[in-house]
């Protein structure tokens, strides 16, 4: 077995040294009726070639995004990741290290996390960011719990523009400890309606920007109304590239910003691993979940970095911790941070502009197709269209022609018949004019 260095001879000598007759002597504490003396019904070991054949065959059964005209977003986005990102994150010292518990020999991880925290705080326009969460949806759930701790109120209001999967996560997690979640109905723009729902029991209002339907909205008035009632505004950003062009939530009054960081540095990966971003105001620091890296000095006075404010965390606070989170998404944070460092301010701004300009172009070309209307008036790189007939079937027929054309809203909102004809489409810098030509030609055939 190629991964096991001990030889039968080693094993025999080591057992003798321990004073055990056989390996079974070391498992004596296992109750007799639970000992398995026969191998389980699973196939025997395989060489690299055999494993590669099996898994490549499975991979070959899928239609990968890069091999088709691709217009899917809705919480995960296909962007070009520079080659150096994947090379660097596969360095042994990053890939095969543990959480940086021994700072003297983990400065690499600690420094990049400090840089990552700074980048996230800058992008979102917030004071502080943590060292990452599992993904955007779990970060959103944690944000709602945090808002309840701060306000000592139990009621969360969630906009109808928030991704339904995020809404479901928030509802599930908040209900566990007795919280109430008020889910506003699906809506491209419900900010005014949300204001009317806020009362003195409201802990927080959760909105997404740009929202699930692609709409980019000014949140300032909402923020004012939320704060006027002593509640907190939580802003979800699922397409982090948008912040290269859009006013950050922090400048519109957000108290907590959570995001999905997958767009930078990380692939689609069929849903995971992704990268949860979490940023807030300094005054709420001690109620934050997750790991934090801080700057300090060593015994020689040299600058160094350490995990800090750990008393918030489960290994010290146990049942009074701000969260049970332990492992986060370190390597995904590294990929994000390297990609953003490569882009820099100029690169990110241009990337965001490309996304927006390309999306405008695709939206305008689709709007010209008979039977199609574009429903989202203002957007970044994602918009909702109406096919005039059930979108799920249109999207399925397009998939049959090798085109991945967006997410039918009936998949995300199965109980909203009004949305049955609509789909949300995303356009990024990876889309070509040919992709749009192919999409429109195929649409003319299937509509």
């Amino acid at each position, binding site marked *: 077995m190629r991964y096991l260095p001990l030889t039968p001879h080693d094993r025999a000598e080591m057992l003798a040294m321990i004073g055990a007759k056989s390996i079974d002597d070391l498992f004596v504490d296992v109750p007799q009726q639970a000992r398995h003396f026969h191998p389980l019904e699973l196939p025997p070991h395989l060489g690299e070639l055999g494993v590669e054949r099996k898994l490549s065959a499975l991979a070959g059964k899928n239609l990968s995004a890069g091999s088709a005209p691709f217009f899917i977003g809705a919480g995960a986005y296909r962007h070009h990741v520079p080659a150096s990102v994947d090379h660097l994150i596969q360095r042994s010292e990053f890939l095969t290290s543990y959480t940086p518990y021994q700072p003297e020999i983990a400065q690499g991880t600690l420094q990049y996390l400090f840089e990552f925290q700074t980048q996230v705080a800058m992008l979102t326009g917030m004071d502080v960011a943590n060292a990452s969460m599992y993904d955007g949806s779990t970060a959103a759930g944690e944000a709602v719990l945090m808002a309840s701790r701060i306000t000592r109120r139990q009621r969360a209001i969630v906009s109808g523009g928030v991704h339904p999967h995020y809404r479901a996560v928030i509802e599930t997690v908040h209900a566990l400890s007795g919280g109430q979640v008020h889910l506003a109905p699906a809506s491209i723009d419900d900010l005014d309606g949300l204001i009317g729902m806020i009362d003195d029991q409201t802990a927080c209002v959760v909105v997404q920007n740009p929202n699930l339907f692609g709409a980019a909205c000014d949140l300032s008035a909402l923020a004012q109304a939320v704060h006027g009632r002593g509640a907190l505004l939580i802003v979800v950003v699922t397409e982090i590239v948008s912040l290269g062009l859009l006013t950050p939530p922090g400048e519109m009054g957000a108290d907590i910003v959570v995001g999905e960081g997958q767009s930078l540095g990380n692939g689609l990966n069929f849903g995971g691993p992704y990268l949860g971003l979490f940023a807030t105001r300094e005054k709420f620091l*001690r109620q934050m979940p997750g790991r934090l890296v801080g700057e300090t000095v060593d015994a020689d006075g040299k600058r160094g970095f350490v995990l800090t404010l*750990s*008393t918030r965390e489960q290994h*010290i606070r146990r049942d009074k911790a701000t969260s049970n989170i332990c492992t986060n998404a370190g390597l995904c944070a590294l990929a994000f941070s390297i990609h953003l460092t490569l882009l820099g301010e100029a690169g990110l701004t241009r990337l965001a502009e490309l996304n927006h300009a390309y999306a405008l172009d695709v939206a305008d070309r689709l709007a010209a197709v008979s039977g199609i209307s574009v429903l989202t008036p203002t957007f970044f790189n994602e918009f909702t269209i109406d096919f005039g007939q059930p979108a799920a079937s249109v999207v399925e027929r397009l998939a049959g022609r090798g085109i991945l054309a967006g997410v039918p809203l009936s998949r995300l909102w199965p109980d909203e018949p009004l949305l049955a004809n609509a789909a949300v489409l995303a356009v990024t810098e990876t889309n070509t004019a040919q992709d749009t030509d192919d999409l429109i030609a195929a649409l003319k055939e299937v509509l």
Partner: protein
Amino acid sequence: MTKYTKDHEWVRLDGPLASFGITDFAQGQLGDVVFVELPEIGRRIAAGDQIAVVESVKAASDVYAPVGGEVVEINSALVDAPDMVNASAEGDGWFAKIKLDNPSALDGLMDKAAYDAFVGSQS
């Protein structure tokens, strides 16, 4: 006259007010204190209520009110100088002052000798 609790708080009567903090033994167990979460002024508490939190880098401890009453003053100097708890746990490192509901509330608590004996029996 300073009295002590089994949760390692001290409390001292100062006219109608009782000031309290954590004992020198407790600060030694915690290590370098980095943060103290103080109660709000005006809060009414009963003896034994959790009233503050004191944290070092690797540990945290709830602090319980040694006596019941109303919080009338807090030692806000600890916000910027939590190390005062290490340097002077039973002096400048006091946490808050409580206006007592019952002036004889300290009677049931340990005196210095009894507390020292209690600590000795714990280790």
